[in-house]
């Protein structure tokens, strides 16, 4: 019996061992600091944000807002949603499992919490050793992974502009990156060359950053010392280029049906009489540009 169990286990290990390896092995690290950022962006560019980032014109629904977490370690950092953070925390507590979350809506703080289909959320992982930035997301039912060299933002540091954020003295820096001009505020009191999303490369932590038309904005709202593992979740990622990554994001925004059809096989669209019709009824026109605009 023991021998049979060993054979089975060996066979399973062998099958998994022969799975194709990733392009490079991500550096694992532990955080020493966690920062919480308020992130908001305009989903309908008919709306305009004021300098205080409240709506000047447009509908309230035109602004999408969320809180995201930046875990900073010596060798790596990870920027992701609180939803994923909660899920990982629940799993790490050992009181439940992935299937528990999938199958029986787990109540946390009065809200239901379950993973996405592929178990992957939006995440930016910076590998400071390999100098790579990895972005993951789920479009339709599949998980995607974009791996880039750490971008050179070409920051220009201001000689005059300073302001205080959360009690830290911050200095202004500007850059142009993938179709947008940004203003960032960083503090040298925290000598960490990191920030929200893909932003990094300044001699201090980026506390606030926004594009000049104020369509995307990240602002720090919390800092705490926490030691927690930083790693990419194990998932069946499809590796994509930046062009394809943005193309998939656009398709999900505009036509999720087409994306599902391409991922899980033919999707049948019928009208109330049972006749096949096209899927255009739920196609949306995007009313905003992604943060990265490629020409």
């Amino acid at each position, binding site marked *: 019996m023991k021998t049979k169990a060993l054979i089975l286990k060996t066979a399973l290990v062998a099958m*998994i061992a*022969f799975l194709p390896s990733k392009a490079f092995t991500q550096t694992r690290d532990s955080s*020493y*600091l966690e920062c*919480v950022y308020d992130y908001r962006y305009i989903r309908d560019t008919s709306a305009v944000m004021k300098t205080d980032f409240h709506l000047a014109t447009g509908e309230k629904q035109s602004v999408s807002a969320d809180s995201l977490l930046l875990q900073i370690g*010596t*060798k790596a950092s990870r920027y992701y*949603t609180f*939803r994923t953070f*909660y899920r990982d925390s629940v799993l790490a507590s050992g009181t439940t*499992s992935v*299937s*528990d979350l999938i*199958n*029986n809506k787990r109540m946390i*703080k009065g809200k*239901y919490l*379950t993973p996405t*289909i592929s*178990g992957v959320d939006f995440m930016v992982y910076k590998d*400071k050793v*390999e*100098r790579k930035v990895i972005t993951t997301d789920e*479009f339709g039912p*599949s998980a995607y992974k974009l791996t880039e060299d750490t971008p050179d933002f070409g920051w220009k*540091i201001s000689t*005059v502009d*300073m302001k205080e954020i959360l009690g830290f003295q911050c*200095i202004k820096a500007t850059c142009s990156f993938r179709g947008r001009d940004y203003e960032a505020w960083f503090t*040298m009191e925290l000598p960490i060359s990191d920030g929200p999303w893909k932003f990094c490369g300044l*001699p*201090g932590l980026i506390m606030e950053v926004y594009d000049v038309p104020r369509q995307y904005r990240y602002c720090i709202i919390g*800092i*705490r010392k926490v030691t927690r593992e930083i790693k990419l979740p194990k998932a069946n990622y*499809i590796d994509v280029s930046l062009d394809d990554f943005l*193309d998939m994001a656009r398709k999900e925004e505009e*036509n999720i*049906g*087409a*994306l*599902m*059809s*391409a*991922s899980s*096989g*033919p999707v*049948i*669209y019928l*009208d*109330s*009489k*049972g*006749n*096949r*019709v*096209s*899927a*255009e*009824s739920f196609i*949306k026109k995007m009313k905003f540009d992604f943060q990265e605009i490629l020409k």
Partner: protein
Amino acid sequence: MLGFRTIICLAILFVGASSFAQTTRIWGTVSSAEENAAMPGAVISYVLKDGRLGGFAISDGKGKFEIATSSNPMQGDSLKISMMGYSQVAIAMPVQSPVSVALRTKPMEIREVRVTAPKIKMAGDTLRYNVASFTEEQDKYLKDVLKRMPGIEIRSDGTIFYNGESIGNVYVEGIDVVGGRYSILSENMSVRDVKTVEVLERHQPIKALAGIMPGTKASINLKLREESIGRWIGNINLKGGTDPAPSGLWNGNLMLMRIGRKWSSVNNVKSNNTGKNLKSELSDRILEGNDGGYIALNVNEAPLGDQRSKFNTSAIFSSSNTIKCGNWEYGASAAYSYDKIKSANTSRTTYYFDDGIETVTESEKSSSSEQFVQAKFRAQGNTERDYFDNTLAAELTFASARKEIDGSFANNQNANLPSIYITDNLKYLKRFGDRTFRINSINTYSSNNEELKITRTSGEQWQRIQLSELSTDTYLSGNIQSGMYLSSSIQAGLQGTYRSLRSTLSGIELDGLSYSNNISTVMISPYIQLGLTYNHPKLRITALLPVQWKRYTKPVAGMLGYRIYTNMEYLPTAKLTVKFTGQAYNNGLNMTSLYEGYILKNYRLLSSGNMITKMGNTGNAKLALNYKNPIKMWFVELGISGIWSRYPYSVTQNFSGDYIVGGYMNSPSSARKLNSYFQWNKGLYELNGKVGVKISYTDYVSNSYIRNGVRSPYHMKDITFKPEFEARLAEWLSMTYTMRFNNYWYSSNSSNKWSCKMNFNHSISCNLTLLSNLDIKLLAQHYYTGLDSGSSMNTVLADASICYRLTCGVELSITAHNLLNSKTYTYSVYNRLNDFYCKYDIRPLNVLVGVFFAF
């Protein structure tokens, strides 16, 4: 800290791009003094003597840095190396490159700023659909919008499929309001009351099994709009019209429901005479119904759709009520259906023999009616430690059928087929940590009291049958989770059946067997099933091994039964999935054929029972390869499957006068079926459409039949080709084209050559939106049927509808079916050793005017 801040800020204020006129490079490495390891991410600042910042750099993965300063290093300038959690190091200039710096750890001093953790924004389950974004103006019922949701498909019998697999149940606000009869909701609930459709993948409805055993099926949960909760909501749909006969046509529906936190009620009254048998909307996806009796007076089904080929009057009433008390739900429901069908067709059946063929030509006028009553009571308690569910249901069916047949065997048939079915399904489950203990017990009683009278010129035949059956399937099971991925289960139980058959047959004179049966059989079967599940993200394996001992009292027999099942899913890359399913089992004795005399099933088929005590063995396997490239919008699947069966007996068919006598005899036989398929789908993103094709090939060989004492092996092959295309051709015009091409080949001992037959149909539909509140739909279908003699039949059908929506929520429509007023439809198929050709009357041109209102 203040001093450091002041220095840094002053330094930065004096930094200017214009000051970096000359460039000097300073490079080196930063490491950890304690670990002597390279330190990536350290901030290296070059501070000039006057406090200005001369430049900065961040150390890379190997701890290396390089600063380009604007001026030559001078006495008083310094290089400062900083990193959170490490003491800052300052090096006086000038310094020779490379510079090597080792940082020492120190307690990190930082002002923490605590924030209240934000609420989770993304609530809900695996997949959520916002109904509003899928709804078109013309959508009335839930099914209209479900059909349009990606991955969801509703088949003609009302069963909902998600990604190709039937779903488990439909809930409203988490409550099982219709107890498995979810078609009542999908067919009749107004879409405007639904806010969100949640698809719960691998949904496990039993809370105590969470984390131990994932559910096997997806379920749907409907979230209602706030204003639709806790009040009576519903809709009325009335349609009336005529055909050239002239005869009146109607199609009406009233839905009334209330979903509340404490109690819910779903009520539906519906009737039509436009072809659809409404009983299908009452079909229960959880409880199994009566298997039925022996007498078979079915109305032939044309593969054209009920609404074109059936002439019926149908009505249903249903009421489902649920009360929720904490973790307990109590439900009571009642349902009634009535369906009367009239059908007319002419047919020709060719029977192949070893020494020739026999052709029977008939015309048939039939009418059948069925009344069905069901009552169901349910109690369910569902907590994280315990689960209890008991459902008690009783069904009464009063069916009758009449057939007038002219031709080779002219006769009139009258049948009365009443039946009773009572079932109780008890489930109890207790969880102890990662272990569970479960008791299930399904107990059923059924009774059929059938009577068939056949009148011919030669006389009358009577068949009377009394059949009753009592059965149980009771088992205990336990489940253990080992680590993250592995779980094992054991199940032990007892199956038992008592079956009593009494029948008398008069008016027939045939040699051989008795005309009456009086047999009572008991089957007792203890069994044990071992199960193993490995659920790794890249490899999923399920294996089940049940073993059972079956004991029969009449005929006296004992035998060992098994059913080995394995399923493996391997995902080597994100784009590729390999699936394998294999199964091997032996079939127990078929208790419905355990009798010794004759039973007359209809005017033509006479069944002789058998007491064969040997079992057949069957094995099947399927290997499928699935490749997807969502970026290019490609989806490809190809697969191959096979089923192999070996039986210790053969099926006999003896032609004796007006009758075909069917039975079994001790003589080994076998059958084999192979199938392969290829499916390709490509999204046409710019056209908002898609193009795809499916090709399948089937090869079937059997030598199971012995006809008139001669074994009659046969061989069938068929290939199916199904291309499809859909696109939005203009802002106001969308189009869909589908085609299905079938080619059949048939070979038997008698023909000794391949016969070939081709069927082909295609359909084009257009949707024109000329105004925002006006829709015009046009549909044209062409059916080509290849007939045996080399000739063919063509049928063309066309429909049109106009729908106009008033601003007050009332919708007016006019629909015309069969615009070309086609009268008949013909099809022809090979069926085992027969060739069947049939010509149906179809519903002529008819027009319906309708009004719909939701409240």
